[in-house]
């Protein structure tokens, strides 16, 4: 009983606002430290690749961005669904806060992928399953943002967005398994949960550090945006107007 109450404590906008405000600086510090470490190892420790030369170093931002684009979408869909199912307005606010950062990472994955593809594959773009489904992910993010902003009634907007987000979630496993299910130009999985990685340790370490850095960054920015949305929506609330909020 006590656990349940503590869990739902932060469903309250003012409490979440305060907690997020306290955590954000730590997320930024973590992002910068992990990012610096990841880039240091990626650019100064990891060796040059036998086939791709130094072009492969794009991997240290391309893969983390791609992973973030998928994870943030699922998280966005999750909170949007919770907000809809339980009429939990903070959950809907978090979903809206996730979208721009998720879209940003999707663009970054596509951009860095194109710049990696040109010297290595000989092309900026190809309509294979992985690239096409990642592009669709970008459209889903943008569509979600456009949809929730187009509807004036906040609650209806949140609900419509939740429907789009949840239905669009089917795209994420498609992106992930595309290299296994179809014949793609994009290479298959190098890292698996069950088998030993087929990458040099320093490359893998750099990639994982950069992923953690992107995750910490995402927390920092998404929490900041959530705080902004809370203030925008709770404008009339006493806790904001009587100077209690930090």
């Amino acid at each position, binding site marked *: 009983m006590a656990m349940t109450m503590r869990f739902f404590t932060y469903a309250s906008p003012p409490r979440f606002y305060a907690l997020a405000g306290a955590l954000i600086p730590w997320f930024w510090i973590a992002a910068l430290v992990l990012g610096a470490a990841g880039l240091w190892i990626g650019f100064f*420790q990891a060796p040059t690749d036998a086939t791709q030369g130094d072009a492969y170093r794009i991997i240290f931002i391309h893969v983390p961005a791609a992973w973030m684009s998928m994870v943030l979408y699922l998280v966005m869909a999750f909170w949007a669904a919770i907000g809809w199912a339980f009429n939990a307005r903070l959950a809907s606010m978090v979903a809206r806060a996730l979208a721009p950062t998720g879209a940003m990472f999707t663009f970054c994955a596509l951009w860095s992928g194109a710049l990696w593809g040109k010297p290595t594959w000989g092309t900026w773009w190809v309509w294979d399953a992985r690239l096409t489904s990642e592009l669709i992910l970008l459209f889903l993010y943008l569509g979600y943002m456009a949809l929730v902003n187009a509807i004036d009634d906040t609650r209806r907007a949140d609900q419509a967005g939740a429907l789009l987000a949840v239905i669009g979630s089917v795209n994420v496993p498609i992106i992930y398994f595309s290299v296994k299910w179809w014949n793609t130009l994009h290479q298959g999985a190098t890292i698996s949960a069950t088998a030993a990685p087929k990458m040099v340790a320093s490359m893998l370490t750099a990639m994982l550090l950069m992923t953690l850095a992107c995750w910490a960054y995402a927390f920092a920015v998404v929490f900041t945006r959530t705080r902004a949305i809370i203030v925008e929506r709770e404008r009339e609330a006493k806790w904001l*107007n009587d100077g209690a909020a930090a």
Partner: protein
Amino acid sequence: MIWNSAGEFFAMGGYGLYVWGSYGVIAACIAIDALIAIKRHRAARAATAANGENN
């Protein structure tokens, strides 16, 4: 140290345009994403403060 000079580092074995083109644009995107979010929060707080004074 795998780079013998700063020049080598920036050249990235001939792939400098692609590598720095990736990291540069992404760094800009990250900075813009963060700054817009921070500005949005500040603007919202300012609007609420102004609203509070008018009440």
